[in-house]
Every structure is written in C-alpha cells, then in structure tokens.
C-alpha cells in the first residue's frame, strides 16, 4: 500500500485527531511549571534627553508554578544575568556592567521572587514579590495578564522601577535630568506543562 493512498491518509488524520483530543483533555487539568526561556523575554525602556530607548536581557532563567484552578497558590522566581544586558546604545553596553552601574562582578544576577498572587479576574493577576538588584531588595507589585492555549501559558506585564532605588547609575549619573530615573520593564514569561 502506497503511503499516498487515501486509506493511509485517513488513518493518519484520525491518529492526529485522537492525539490532539487527548492533549486538550490533558491541558484541562494543566499545571504550568516549565519556564520556556526561548519564548520568554525581559525588555525595558528608558528615556535619555527626551528620547525613549529600548533594551533587553539576553539571559535569564527561573522556575514557576501556576495552576489555573488555584491561581493564588502560584509562585515564580526569575533570575536575570545582568551582564547579558543590551541597552540599545552600543556605547552604554560597554559601561553599564561597571561598578557605578550594575556592578555585575559583585552582583551578577537580579532576582525576582513572588510572595503572593492575587487573581483580579478575566485572566489578570497581581503578583507581589521582592526584587533584588545590586544588593538592594525592594517589594514590588507586578500586574500580569495570562493567555493560555495549546498547553502553553504566556504571562505578560509591565512595571516601573526607579534605578536610583538600586544605585544603578552613581556619581554624575545619579541625577536624572539626562537619564531618567524610571525604567519601564516589560516581560513575557512563557510556561509549559
């Protein structure tokens, strides 16, 4: 029997359908606990001299646990490799890992760890946790919107931190007239089952 015969094709289609159906049932009781780093992103933007520039981190990792049936028991811990920063400004990339900025030699990673998750309804959540950058720990509240489909949960959100709170940019950079204090962080965290 040729592999192009109608019977083989029909059987293949039925097999695929069964597989898809069982996957759909499985995901119904899904617990998302696998961080999919390659489909996740941590980006930020900031303003210098009235110009908004965009940067991102190339390396980060972490763990999370999210059960759609019990969202308030969810937890997440994300660690960002600070030396992997790209600021959107070639000259700044060379500077920003230094001691008056992120001081990546002493503090190689930033860490966020959730302490509480509140469901706001409509697949929106409020995640409270601690953010640790350059030896300073601060409690932050992060909004996150969830889109779950095909066994993948994507959490997206944005929050603002003040670089001055973490001594990022010391000395002449500690004033905010040229380089703004606010850093807006956007994240997309993708989790699989």
């Amino acid at each position, binding site marked *: 029997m040729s592999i192009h015969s109608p019977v083989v094709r029909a059987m293949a289609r039925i097999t695929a359908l069964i597989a898809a159906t069982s996957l759909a049932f499985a995901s119904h009781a899904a617990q998302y606990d696998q961080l999919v780093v390659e489909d996740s992103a941590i980006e930020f933007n900031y303003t210098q001299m009235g110009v908004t520039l965009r940067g991102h981190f190339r390396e980060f990792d972490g763990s999370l646990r999210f059960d759609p049936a019990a969202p308030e028991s969810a937890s997440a811990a994300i660690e960002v490799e600070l030396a992997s920063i790209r600021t959107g400004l070639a000259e700044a990339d060379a500077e920003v890992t230094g001691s008056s900025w992120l001081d990546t030699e002493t503090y190689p990673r930033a860490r966020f760890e959730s302490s509480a998750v509140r469901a706001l309804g409509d697949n929106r959540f409020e995640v409270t946790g601690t953010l640790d950058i350059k030896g300073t720990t601060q409690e932050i509240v992060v909004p996150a919107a969830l889109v779950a489909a095909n066994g993948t949960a994507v959490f997206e959100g944005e929050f603002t931190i003040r670089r001055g709170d973490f001594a990022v940019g010391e000395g*002449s950079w500690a004033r905010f007239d040229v380089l703004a204090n606010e850093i807006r962080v956007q994240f997309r965290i993708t989790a699989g089952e």
Partner: protein
Amino acid sequence: MKPRPSRPTSSPSPSSYTTTAKLLHWLMALLILGMISLGLYMQGLPFSPEKLKLISWHKWAGICVLLLVTVRLGWRLTHPPPPLPAHMPRVLRMAAHTGHALLYVLMFVIPLSGWLMSSAKGVPTVWFGLWPLPDLLAPNESLGNALQVTHKYLNWFLMAVIGGHVAAAFKHHLIDRDDILVRMLPTLNRENQK
C-alpha cells in the same frame, strides 16, 4: 599702506547682498563653526551625562542647520547674488562657483549624514527633546559606524572648503582690493537695504 580705491557705497541693489542673505550667511557661519567645535570636543569625551547632553544638542542644532540651509537655498535661488568682480579670470570664477556649490551641498549632506548615523545607531532624533523626527534607517550597527566615519570625513572636507572660502575672501580684500569681503558685512550699503 596704499589707500584703497573707494568702494561703491551707493550702488544699485543687485551689486549687494540682501539683509536676509547676510543674516543667513553669518548665522550659519557661527552655527557651523560652533557645530564643528562641539563635534570635535564631544566625540572624545568619556561616556557621561554631559556627553549624552552635548550629543543631543548637536543633533538639535544639526536639524536647525538643515532647515536654515533649505531656507537659504530658496532665498539664493530667488535673489541672485551680486556678480563677481570683472577682473576675475575665468578659472577663478569657476573655482568660486564650485566652492560655493560645494558649501551648499555639504551644508545639506553633513546634517543628513548625522541624522542617518543616529537612526542607524538606533537613537531616534527628538528635536529639542519635544518633536520626534522619523528614523531614516533601521538600526544597524555596522552601517551606523560607517556613517559615523562618513560624517567625520565630510566635516574634514567642509573645514578645508571653509578654509578656502575664508582665504579667498581675504585674498580679494587684501590683494585684489575689491569689495567681495566687505559686501557680505552687515554695515555696508545700509542705505540700500529694503
């Protein structure tokens, strides 16, 4: 010193520049010399808030140069400059016209090369920190670096042409003793200004 031949201080207006043309000439002269000095100074600075500030000012002023040279070219095309002195040989007339054409071309091309370079380096230009200008190129690091080198060499070329321009003006004034330099000064022909 020999007495200068008297200059035609009350000649008809086609033999003099308009007040607008003089104003644009000297305004741009100051701006361009300031920009060249600023450019030379800031590019050697260490990465600092001062440097970012100066680069932004330089970009804002560059857009001003681009606007002013557009106005100036429009004015020049509708208000013919006074003719060159009759004593000038053909070769020097051609050199003068070529030099002036080059100055106009460079006054357009240099700010544009800076704008292109800024776009390629991924930094949008927001004029005076208020008005975002379109990015002319997508971010591209190697193109940005190539445009930076282009911007630099165009400016060295501009400095050479300006040097020739100034030397020619003084040559006319001191050796030929004609009114080429003086007719661009703001005080001459005051009674002819409209």
